[in-house]
């Protein structure tokens, strides 16, 4: 097992290395003079000179790269051109919002997708199965921004059941400890504020979770169908076990594996989707910050966000793979 983990960790190194080269190129090979491109209209000769020195643009390219790599290894992501504050601080301030959103979306997708998939597999080729197939087709075909705007119009503008945007009603003041609205309100025992935060989360989480929902439903259905035809399931039925026991113990236990892998793969899509979802719902997180940074031509911020999101994606999949190897010995020894 240890050997497997080490092998997986070592395999991640070339990817990280390649990633650093791409992101280095993103800044240092900006079309034209990088310093001018970075500063945009605010470029004064002094500022340009400062940025040039900071990036080491007068040095050979390989030295610039080594300097960048050294910075990264020290956890230094540089400063935002707009706010002049360390990017890592700004990131940590906004990241809890994105985590809250993506976890909400994942709970929605997994919580609904697995039962739907199981239901469809149990009633295969029936009306219910057809409905589930249509839902999952719509899930992958409706873009987040179309679904998000539609939900916003129906449930916030027309019905007024749920808030249209933001993470919390602006009239509610809460104290921030962790920057997670739901956790901070619970810590302070502020139950009304907690539910207010929760009501703000529902629409964005559904919009963001729709694609993973469709994919998880499809995979669960296919995986359950696969396992249902196995000999040991027939044996279990022949022994006279209850349908409930066959479904829980013999089918789902084995059908889980592909489902878990796919859930891990969804994390990347969720982080990327958060960029769009947060923009629609004015959700204060890293995604909205990305769009803001692009509009401001704050390339250092864009570069850092891509790096961190890719890192998270790699780590999550590593954890999923290792967890998977724990459950399934066939992988460990392969």
């Amino acid at each position: 097992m240890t050997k497997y983990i080490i092998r997986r960790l070592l395999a991640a190194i070339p990817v990280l290395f390649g990633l650093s080269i791409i992101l280095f190129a993103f800044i240092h090979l900006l079309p034209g003079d990088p310093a001018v491109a970075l500063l945009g209209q605010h470029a004064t000769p002094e500022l340009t000179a400062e940025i040039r020195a900071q990036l080491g643009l007068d040095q050979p390219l390989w030295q610039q790269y080594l300097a960048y790599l050294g910075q990264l290894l020290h956890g230094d992501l540089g400063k935002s051109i707009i706010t002049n504050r360390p990017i890592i601080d700004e990131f940590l301030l906004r990241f809890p919002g994105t985590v809250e959103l993506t976890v909400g979306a994942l709970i929605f997708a997994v919580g609904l997708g697995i039962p739907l998939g199981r239901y469809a597999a149990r009633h295969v080729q029936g009306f219910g199965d057809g409905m589930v197939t249509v839902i999952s087709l719509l899930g992958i075909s409706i873009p987040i921004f179309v679904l998000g705007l539609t939900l916003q119009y129906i449930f916030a503008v027309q019905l007024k059941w749920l808030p249209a945007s933001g993470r919390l009603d602006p009239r509610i003041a809460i104290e921030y400890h962790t920057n997670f609205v739901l956790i901070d309100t619970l810590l302070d025992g502020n139950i009304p504020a907690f539910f207010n935060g929760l009501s703000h989360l529902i629409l964005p989480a559904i919009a963001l979770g729709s694609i993973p929902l469709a994919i998880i439903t499809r995979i669960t259905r296919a995986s359950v169908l696969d396992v249902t035809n196995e000999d040991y399931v027939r044996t279990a039925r022949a022994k006279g076990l209850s349908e409930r026991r066959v479904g829980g113990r013999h089918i789902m236990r084995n059908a889980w594996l592909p489902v878990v892998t796919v859930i891990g793969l969804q994390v990347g899509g969720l982080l990327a989707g958060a960029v769009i979802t947060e923009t629609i719902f004015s959700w204060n997180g890293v995604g909205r910050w990305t769009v803001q940074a692009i509009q401001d031509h704050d390339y250092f911020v864009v570069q850092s966000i891509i790096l961190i999101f890719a890192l998270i994606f790699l780590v999550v999949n590593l954890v999923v793979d290792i967890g998977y190897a724990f459950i399934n010995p066939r992988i460990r020894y392969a």
Partner: protein
Amino acid sequence: MATVAAPRARRAEARASRGLWRDAFNRLMRNGPALVGLFFITVFFAAAIFAPFIAPYDPIAGSLADRLQLPSAAHIMGTDLQGRDEFSRILYGARVSLFVAVGSVIMALIMGGIAGATAGAVGGKVDNVVMRIVDVMLAIPGILLAIGIVAWLGQGLPQIMIAVAATNAPIFARILRGSLLANREVDYVSAARSLGASRSRMLFRHMLPNSLTALIVAATLALATAIIDVAGLGFLGLGPADPRTPEWGTMLTDATRFIRQAPYLIFFPGLAIVVAAIGFNLLGDGLRESLDPRMKR
């Protein structure tokens, strides 16, 4: 003896390869959902191709006097904030969407195809290097890579095309390499090898044609995501350089501020994107089932 056997073998070969595609086509024509998809795609293509003939108004020039009109007989989808006919803009938007999406998928097929074929056919160190590059590109999640590329290259349709292609190319490379590797050990390839077929003949005559089916399915499904991604970039303000260009995602962004007064400005472009995406998704699934009958349940 040998002179008789050779043409017969060639004929059998020709019949077999014709059979695969014809069988697949026949199965596709009997696949209900795929036909629905094909219908949606036809509507989408027709809108794009015949936009100048169908569109009742100019998609770019509008009159402010006509702004934000509800759908009516004169403007069946209403007018936007600048008094432009929404229906005409949707039709012309299909052009932009189709052009960029198809262009990006073709570009991705070329890039990913070359990378995947090289990796799968040459193997060894080349395979290792190519696949590590693919891993790096796949590590940057989906549209974030496209966002980065457009932010870097600047706005414009060719830039968007490259950006969306870059998100699909590594996926295609991986698929092609995977099926090439699987094909390398198949009996008919071993047979060709033992008959002394050259490396390139084995690759182009035996392995590639049999690996193409997976790529065709993936490319069709990628057209759906490409349409969504192009609109997504537009929605984030990374659309065509000229903001007047009728592009579905950009049209949605412009409409968000008027969601209360003019929800139809969100409904119609949204519907257009969804119909196009459903079309390619249904066709892709149908192709998968008809090209590989074992997939069908």
